[in-house]
């Protein structure tokens, strides 16, 4: 026995046992049981020693407590059966109230869950990759930052030890795939919107799943192509396409070496992948032409700065020699691309981080609204159960039990609401997916973690919402209740008003938000872009047509419905090439367009100074640039700008540079991309050989006629390939679709928020007017008109709304300003929206309250006063 344990601690434990026992049982039982224990304890102290006796005592007490616990559990469950029965009975008695309450909460929960799932979906892009946190995109600080030259990508994996693998992507859009039909001379044509030439190391870096074919060898040989499952199904149906031959752009043939599944949420959308080696050794090792995005894989532990420095050092000299400039490289992590990387000329998809945040906040706001509603309605209704409370107390319930009873009811309500929320979610999921352009599955709802969250969340809402009513209601004094005294409860009223204030503020903010977003979208869609984007067809020439471009243009122009035709290397909305010039000690980047002189006419780009390219002047083809206003500003050129000569080695989109360029004209700035983006500095030069994108302006009065003429000319020149084109304004429209979506979503949320608030109002006002039935009856008897009674009862709410406005307006202002700062060109915040939203709220309130009030105001006073 350890004698070091002091007398003091022994006494402590004995007393502890005593208090433990006392806590379980009443006085009488305690006396008996503790006496028995003490008797034996004393005996054992003497016979077996202090320590043994103490341990024995503790074990006995613990045993007793466990039994008591089991008992109370058993009885607790018995009581719950009664509570549940009561809860359902109450619900069916007050079915109207129950429906409103549950509906409001169900909507709130459904909205919250859907938006949370959306946020979760958008946060998981690119995570299908095993090497997710080790993949980086290579870029340079100079120029665009995402396009680097092919030669760097070619060597970087072998030259730099810390880079394990690299893969280059060369984007080619709208390729034509043709396959030979069985037993006929005809070929079936398919358009492939996004095709990339990629290195064979693709599958080492990105975890793309292959359905047919071997990932190790699929892209090793030149003229191999790997297609996605959807494309394979379109072209070959259900058969295995391995080994089939495809004719590309009517120029050469490739063999299908694999079929891949479309990866789940990959930021690079692709339809086909060709082997990079097809492009040849020269292209592959070129150190000019900055047009090849490259991704690299790094090992587990790496020092980013070190690797970047290594790359820059390794290539510095050769790049300087080839381009006449210095380049610093940086590595951009994969995990930041989808949500945080939006740049000029990007080829990847983006999610909207800003929007995600807003949506998430709004989701919380609506959930809050719904819960607040729930609390309000439950409390209000509870006041009518005062009699039940009184009777229960008289019959023997204590406060603790009443609290448990009301909490149980509240949890049952919230569980019911949750079930309805689930039903709502399933019903709406399809449309939600379309609206938000995500792909949420019902199965996502049932993963282990989400189920846990649901259970926890529902219980929390039920418990939290039930807390206040439970405490408030169980505090009623049975005697005063049964006597019929009405407990006015000042604090209750204050709380109720406060909660309604919150609801209305949130709704008002949402309405203002919706109006502003719609306004912004409208503004952007209708703002003058600075050039004419309407009635312009854009299409790609085939390789075969390049030789006969001039005659193609002439043939097109024979028809008066074709106004003008131009060829270029890119359409205005997608810059393909980037260059940089060093002038006065600073290096400026800009986008380069290689065009023909008619380009400016087709797009109606306005000249500010100087002149356009002259068809007759051959010298205009070499080293002559036209800049836009922003370019002039960025470069810091001084007047007179026209005629300035800059001595730089510049690549005019070919492999052969010029030593100096002369500025022959300046055009006014125009929004070549949507209004989401600032205008970049642009340069135009005229250089045949790389122009294979056609832009045609047609007569707006006879669109179909013009199209058929163009198609006829095309068929004559290229009979084998179908004529495909798109309109430029369609393309721009798509940009605004996203904002429209946002506006629509916020609109829906605003409506729901207001709806929930209105539901709350409905419930409350119906209850309140019921409470005052007698008062209303008396007033009617004394001669009050319906109008006066109406005003009397709605006064309370009207004041609330005014107060809500004072809270909501400044908050809305702050929030909207922050959101609008995203857009370089904005419509501004309109005061009339604030006024409008307040009016909407007031009207909604008047309608709901008014309806309720009119019901009770119209009752015959005889009936209402009879109840005594």
């Amino acid at each position, binding site marked *: 026995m350890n004698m070091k344990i002091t007398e003091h601690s022994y006494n402590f434990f004995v007393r502890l046992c005593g208090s433990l026992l006392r806590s379980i049982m009443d006085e009488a039982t305690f006396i008996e049981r503790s006496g028995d224990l*003490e008797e034996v304890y004393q005996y054992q102290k003497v016979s077996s020693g202090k320590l043994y006796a103490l341990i024995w005592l503790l074990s006995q007490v613990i*045993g007793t407590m466990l039994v008591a616990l089991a008992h109370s559990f058993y009885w607790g469950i018995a009581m719950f059966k009664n509570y549940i029965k009561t809860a359902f009975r109450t619900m069916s008695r007050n079915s109207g109230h129950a429906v409103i309450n549950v509906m409001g909460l169900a909507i709130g929960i459904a909205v919250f869950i859907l938006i949370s799932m959306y946020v979760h979906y958008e946060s998981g892009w690119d995570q299908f990759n095993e090497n997710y946190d080790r993949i980086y995109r290579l870029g340079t600080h100079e120029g665009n930052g995402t396009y680097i030259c092919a030669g760097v990508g070619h060597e970087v994996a072998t030259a730099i030890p810390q880079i394990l693998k690299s893969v280059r992507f060369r984007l080619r859009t709208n390729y034509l795939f043709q396959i030979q039909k069985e037993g006929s001379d005809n070929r079936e044509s398919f358009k492939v919107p996004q095709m990339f030439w990629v290195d064979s190391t693709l599958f080492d870096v990105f975890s793309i799943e292959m359905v047919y074919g071997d990932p190790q060898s699929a892209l090793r040989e030149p003229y191999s192509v790997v297609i996605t499952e959807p494309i394979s199904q379109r072209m070959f149906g259900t058969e295995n396409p391995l080994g089939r031959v495809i004719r590309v752009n009517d120029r050469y043939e490739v063999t299908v070496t694999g079929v891949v599944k479309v990866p789940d949420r990959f930021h690079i959308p692709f339809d086909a992948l060709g082997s990079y080696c097809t492009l040849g050794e020269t292209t592959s090792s070129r150190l000019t032409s900055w047009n090849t995005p490259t991704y690299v894989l790094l090992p587990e532990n790496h020092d980013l700065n070190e690797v970047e420095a290594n790359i820059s050092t390794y290539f510095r000299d050769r790049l300087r020699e080839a381009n006449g400039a210095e380049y610093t490289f940086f590595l951009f992590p994969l995990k930041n691309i989808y949500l945080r990387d939006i740049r000029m000329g990007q080829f990847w998809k983006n999610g909207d981080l800003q929007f995600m945040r807003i949506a998430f906040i709004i989701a919380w706001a609506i959930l809050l609204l719904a819960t607040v509603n729930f609390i309000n309605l439950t409390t209000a209704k509870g006041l009518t159960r005062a009699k039940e409370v009184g009777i229960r107390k008289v019959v023997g319930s204590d406060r603790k039990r009443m609290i448990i009873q009301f909490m149980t009811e509240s949890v049952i309500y919230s569980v019911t609401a949750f079930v309805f929320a689930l039903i709502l979610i399933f019903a709406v999921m399809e449309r939600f997916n379309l609206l938000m352009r995500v792909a949420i599955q019902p199965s996502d709802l049932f993963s282990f973690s989400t189920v846990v969250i649901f259970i926890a969340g529902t219980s929390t809402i039920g418990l939290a919402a039930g807390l206040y009513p439970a405490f408030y209601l169980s505090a009623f004094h049975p005697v005063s209740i049964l006597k019929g005294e009405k407990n006015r409860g000042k604090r209750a009223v204050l709380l109720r008003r406060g909660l309604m204030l919150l609801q209305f503020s949130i709704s008002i903010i949402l309405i203002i938000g919706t109006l502003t977003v719609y306004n912004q979208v409208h503004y952007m869609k209708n703002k003058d872009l600075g050039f004419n984007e309407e009635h312009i067809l854009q299409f790609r020439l085939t390789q075969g047509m390049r030789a006969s471009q001039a005659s193609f243009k002439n043939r097109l122009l024979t028809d008066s419905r074709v106004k003008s035709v131009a060829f270029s290397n890119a359409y205005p909305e997608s810059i393909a090439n980037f260059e940089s010039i060093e002038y006065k000690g600073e290096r400026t980047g800009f986008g380069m367009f290689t065009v023909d002189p008619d380009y400016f006419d087709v797009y109606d780009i306005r000249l500010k100074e100087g002149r356009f390219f002259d068809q007759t002047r051959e010298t205009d083809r070499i080293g002559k640039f036209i800049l836009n206003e922003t370019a002039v500003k960025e470069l810091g050129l001084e007047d007179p700008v026209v005629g300035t000569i800059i001595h730089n080695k510049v690549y005019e989109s070919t492999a052969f540079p010029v030593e100096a360029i002369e500025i022959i004209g300046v055009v006014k700035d125009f929004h070549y991309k949507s209004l989401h983006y600032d205008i970049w500095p642009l340069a135009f030069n005229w250089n045949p050989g790389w122009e294979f994108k056609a832009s045609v302006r047609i007569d707006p009065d006879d669109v179909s006629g013009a199209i058929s003429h163009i198609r006829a000319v095309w068929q004559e020149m290229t009979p084998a390939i179908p004529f495909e084109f798109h309109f430029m304004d369609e393309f721009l429209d798509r940009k605004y679709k996203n904002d429209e979506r946002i506006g629509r979503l916020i609109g829906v949320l605003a409506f729901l928020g207001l709806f929930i608030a209105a539901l709350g109002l409905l419930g409350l006002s119906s209850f309140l007017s019921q409470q005052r039935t007698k008062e209303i009856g008396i007033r009617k008897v004394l001669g009050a008109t319906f109008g006066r009674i109406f005003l009397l009862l709605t006064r309370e709410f009207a004041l609330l709304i005014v107060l809500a406005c004072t809270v909501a307006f400044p908050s809305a202002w702050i929030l909207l300003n922050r959101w609008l700062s995203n857009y370089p060109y904005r419509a501004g915040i309109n005061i009339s929206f604030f006024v409008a939203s307040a009016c909407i709220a007031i009207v909604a309130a008047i309608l709901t309250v008014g309806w309720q009030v009119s019901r009770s105001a119209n009752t015959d006073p005889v009936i209402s006063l009879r109840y005594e």
Partner: protein
Amino acid sequence: MKAISRNEETILLTILKLEDAAYGVSIREKIEEDTGDTWSFASIYQPLDKLLRKNMVVKVKGEPSAARGGKCKFYYHVTNAGKSALLDMRRKHDQVWSGVPQIILE
């Protein structure tokens, strides 16, 4: 006839054996003496409470004593209901045991 569990039966029989001196501690000691098993207090009190509720046992207050820290003892007595429950159990027990071949139990 209300059924009683094995433990309840044991306790009732022990109380009868102890005649006027059956209380928590003595019941526990007697059971240990008879069966060799040590029961915790909890497993004494739980059946006792059940028996009290079934009115098969009554509780009588006794004298305070120093060994119990000045608290009273409570003595238990079996009621008629308890006695008839015991007899019932005994009869059923004998009937069920009769006819079991001796050889199996060796």
